[in-house]
């Protein structure tokens, strides 16, 4: 179910913002023309991801050489710096560790987040 979370132009071009969507805390990431949604709770110790930073993903180019992948932004938790790919919610170092991710699209200048129907039900209950 798509939920309107605001005017696209109000979001920084490379950044993120924590929002309340149907009672659920969500981090909305804008990376140029791409948009991503993540659950705003780090699976490590429960830190608020939205209080962290978003940056281009790290990429090893061999021992002693570090590069960045501009196409894969990562969200770095504001507590301990655990990092997750904004696109998938997957940890940058552990396949088995991930944050729930949500599809985001822009329609007529409005940012729409695909919120699971259970959020609305949980809120009504």
């Amino acid at each position, binding site marked *: 179910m798509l939920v309107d979370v605001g005017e696209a132009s109000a979001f920084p071009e490379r950044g993120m913002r924590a929002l309340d969507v149907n009672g659920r805390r969500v981090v909305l990431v804008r990376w140029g023309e791409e948009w991503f949604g993540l659950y705003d709770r780090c699976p*490590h*110790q*429960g*830190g*608020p991801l939205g*209080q*962290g*930073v978003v940056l281009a993903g790290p990429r090893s180019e061999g021992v002693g050489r570090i590069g960045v992948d501009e196409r894969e932004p990562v969200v*770095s938790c*504001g*507590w*301990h*710096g655990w990092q997750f790919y904004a696109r998938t919610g997957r940890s940058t170092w552990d396949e088995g560790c991930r944050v729930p991710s949500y599809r985001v699209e822009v329609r007529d200048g409005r940012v729409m987040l695909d919120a699971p129907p259970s959020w609305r039900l949980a809120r009504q209950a």
Partner: protein
Amino acid sequence: MYEGPIIDPDVHHSWKSEDWIIDHLSPRWREFARASGRGHVPLAAPGTHWPHLHGVNKRLDGYPADGSPSGSDYETMKRQLLDPFHIERAILSFDVGTNPGVFNADFAIELCRAINDWNIEYWLGMGDPRLYSAILVPTRTPEAAAREIRRVAPRHGHLAEVLLVYSGLGKPFGDPAYDPIYAAAAEVGLPIALHVGGELTCGTGRAMAGGMAGSRLEMHAVASQPTLHHLVSLITHGTFEKFPSLKLMLIEVGVAWIPWLMFTLDAQYPILRLESPWVKRLPSETFREHVRVTTQPCEFPEQPKRLIELLQCFDGIEDLLCFCTDYAHWDEDEPAYVGSRFPRAWWPKLFWDNAAWVYGFPRLDTAGRAG
């Protein structure tokens, strides 16, 4: 999840503006501090800093809305730490207390006095019964440090420990040159807290034995080196024989090293005690009797039981460990997460009783409530 009260021995607090401390200096030192006319002289040791992931060594949401330093705002600390985690006793321990490492030894004496006075007036003056604090002392001048302990300790009942971070004489803390500090602490009935960081961030050149680390990961993995040396020094120099009532809290060095270091000391003691004949008992016995260790930054192996199996190699370990958060540093630990890694049966001691012994607080009552 543990839902009882918690003692947190490692809460980093600060001032909103360094002017608050400068205003507490005596007129001569106030002039000195502001002599440049632009800004002022540093109030802490010139640091050696490894880059942090986010550019600062704090959790990013720990900064107050008014832009003041992390740990400087009571309401933020109350909202993020004291209230949600049921912290019934928070031991405020500055950020992280390297101020005695300023170059001028006389200024260090005056700076510690000003900081202690400000601390009593501002933080302990708030009247929140959960707030306790460390006393900061000029470690380069142990006699002056002892005078400061005797001066300030009687002034407030919530001064809970003497904080040692910077080994000002360039010697490990068991060196007899530091004895005046321990004599004064024992006299006023306060424990010593030894917090990691003095060698690391005071530009001492003694940060780590193998040479300076080339990254934060490298540094952080071996950051406990100097503190473990201080502990060995205190035991082998007989500090606890000279001051039998002295208690020591080790802060921010993790816990997994305990079996290794105690086994090593005990094994070598019968052969090498020739130089420490005054140490009458096995080092591990002294350790058990006088020392407690905070958990943060706790080692978290992939299988939690591995840490417990390792720790249980040292008999009675559950009587020695004290939970702490290290608020609001970037690597702070959260009570529910740490609790999930330790046996439920350890929780009352881990979160309260062991630290209560150090600070002289009542133990939990039979219902698990703070006394």
